[in-house]
């Protein structure tokens, strides 16, 4: 490991909060994981089915009583108020509370409970963030008041430019990720990810969202531009539950993804999710040495330590995103040679949804232990003492994190299992899409050799990152 000037432990968000980091997966498990990936890939090739199974999600409404019990004006209002209340607590604790990131409600709530927890909730239960979205709640309430006073809802002043698609959300998620992984890197006395900066960023994003919803109309903006609605919405497509026209219904697992990528920017969002996790994992292991070299070089060139750290991390975040995107498009380009009827770009958006499970697998593999540990803090001392000033509202302030709750071996098994499951799921979705668009089974199979190579590459990269973690 490098010494000298470099603050060695690049301390990303996980380090700022949690006292225990994951051990790298041992080689025997790496071997098992890689072998399993190859076996399931070949099995997937040999058991190829001939009719698309997921292209129709088969949504059907649940009984009206069940639906009404879950989706009704009371639950909508309560959920909206809960979301708004939690947003207020984040800002309040961020501005008023201790500056120690691990003792302040805001940091853990935003970066662990909401940012990671809502991914899990979305995958299992559907688009729950829509109900709890504080910005949507405010937009709906103000729209309601306006309608009451003026008698009708006015059309939004601007038409949302459709060719922007989901790009505004992609840009905002990139900003969030940069804030978390680059700006927020600690390791110096000046810790970037202070509760105060979290509160300020939250207020800025809130103002931005209100302006945008006022200009483009809340439903349109929430569907396309509001970063967190779009991000969690992407993961909710894996879930078997969806509300349509106010009615709760069930659909096939995974099938909701097949209609997701139509809008521009969607491919970028999937790749950004994979790339950001790759960077976070890589900066703790595989990328630590190159980052420190650039850091030393920038220091020698006269940059201050904080600026040098942020500049080198920004560079490697950009390189990682470019690498992930390059890998994806190279694989898609190869597939493009199978039949000329689709352009490379079109194929990219036709198959991008198959990578959502891989993005999910990366997130779970990388952040599983962080969530297990930090949620103990969320529901003990951060709940009773959100400002970190010695209060005990609910009698849980004395609680703490039991780092012995899961063994290193259990973490390893979860990490490898989730990558393999994500890989299989991605193969299934890819094969299904190929059958639909090529019609011909032979062409579909040939196109899937490329898809297979691409997915093996991503899953192997995930395993490699785990094997290099915190070394």
């Amino acid at each position, binding site marked *: 490991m490098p010494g000298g000037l470099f603050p060695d432990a690049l301390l990303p968000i996980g380090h700022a909060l949690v006292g*225990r980091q994951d051990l790298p997966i041992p080689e025997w498990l790496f071997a098992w994981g890689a072998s399993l990936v190859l*076996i399931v890939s070949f099995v997937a090739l040999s058991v190829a089915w001939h009719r698309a199974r997921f292209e129709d999600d088969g949504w059907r409404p649940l009984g009206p009583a069940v639906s009404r019990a879950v989706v009704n004006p009371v639950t909508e209002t309560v959920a909206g108020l809960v979301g708004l209340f939690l947003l207020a607590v984040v800002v309040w604790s961020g501005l008023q509370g201790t500056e120690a990131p691990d003792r302040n409600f805001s940091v853990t709530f935003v970066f662990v409970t909401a940012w990671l927890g809502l991914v899990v909730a979305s995958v299992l239960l559907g688009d729950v963030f829509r109900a709890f979205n504080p910005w949507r709640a405010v937009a709906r309430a103000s729209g309601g008041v306006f309608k009451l006073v003026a008698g009708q809802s006015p059309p939004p002043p601007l038409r949302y430019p459709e060719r922007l698609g989901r790009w505004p959300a992609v840009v905002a998620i990139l900003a969030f990720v940069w804030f978390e992984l680059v700006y927020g890197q600690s390791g110096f006395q000046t810790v970037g990810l202070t509760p105060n900066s979290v509160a300020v960023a939250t207020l800025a994003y809130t103002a931005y969202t209100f302006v945008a919803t006022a200009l483009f109309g809340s439903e349109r903006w929430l569907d396309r531009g509001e970063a967190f609605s779009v991000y969690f919405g992407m993961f909710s497509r894996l879930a078997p539950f969806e509300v349509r026209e106010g009615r709760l219904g069930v659909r096939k697992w995974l099938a909701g993804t097949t209609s997701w990528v139509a809008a521009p920017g969607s491919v970028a969002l999937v790749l950004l999710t994979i790339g950001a996790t790759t960077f976070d994992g890589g900066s703790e292991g595989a990328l630590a040495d190159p980052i420190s070299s650039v850091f030393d070089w920038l220091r020698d060139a006269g940059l201050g330590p904080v600026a040098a750290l942020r500049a080198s991390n920004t560079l490697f975040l950009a390189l990682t995103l470019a690498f992930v995107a390059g890998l994806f498009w190279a694989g898609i380009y190869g597939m493009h040679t199978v039949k000329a009827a689709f352009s490379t770009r079109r194929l990219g958006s036709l198959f991008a949804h198959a990578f959502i499970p891989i993005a999910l697998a990366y997130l779970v593999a990388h952040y599983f232990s962080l969530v297990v540990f930090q949620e103990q803090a969320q529901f003990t001392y951060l709940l009773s003492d959100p400002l970190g000033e010695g209060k005990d509202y609910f009698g849980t302030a004395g609680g703490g994190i039991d780092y012995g709750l899961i063994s290193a071996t259990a973490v390893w098994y979860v990490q490898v299992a989730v990558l393999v499951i994500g890989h299989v799921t991605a193969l299934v979705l890819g094969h299904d899409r190929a059958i639909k668009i090529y019609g011909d089974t032979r062409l579909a199979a040939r196109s899937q050799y490329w898809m297979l190579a691409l997915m093996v590459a991503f899953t192997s990269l995930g395993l490699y990152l785990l094997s290099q973690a915190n070394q």
Partner: protein
Amino acid sequence: MQSSTRNLAIGAAAVVLAVVLFVVLQGGDDNDDGGAATTTTTSAQPAEPDAGGGNGATGGNGGGGGQEPPAAEVAKIVVRNGQPVGGVQELEFAKGDTIRFVVASDVAEEVHLHGYDVAKDVEAGGRVSFDVSATIEGVFEVELEHSVVPLAEIAVTPG
């Protein structure tokens, strides 16, 4: 008919490839296991060069020479001007062993072993030793608590 033959061929290829891959990667692991075993039995070993370097560096400060024997057995972290000499050390212990290291500091600080949550004060020019039973697996940071300077990373591997 043809496609079932093809499927069989692919299946056979998969099994062969997987076995080969597993043997190759496992083989690498066996060698490594040996390495890991030696590092575990002499858990202070990996830290020695660093600790030695630290000692050598402090040697210039005078008075470091007499400390040689304990430094060879227990990892020693020397803090000069509030920074660890030789950078952040990586120490490895097996679960069930005892995490042992010594911090000698020229500044008054609090040394915090995260995760295990053991914190000890050290005076300027003083030293403090840690002797903690390795019960939790994972990678843990040793930090100068007030100045947020990382000193070492302690890896506790499954025993």
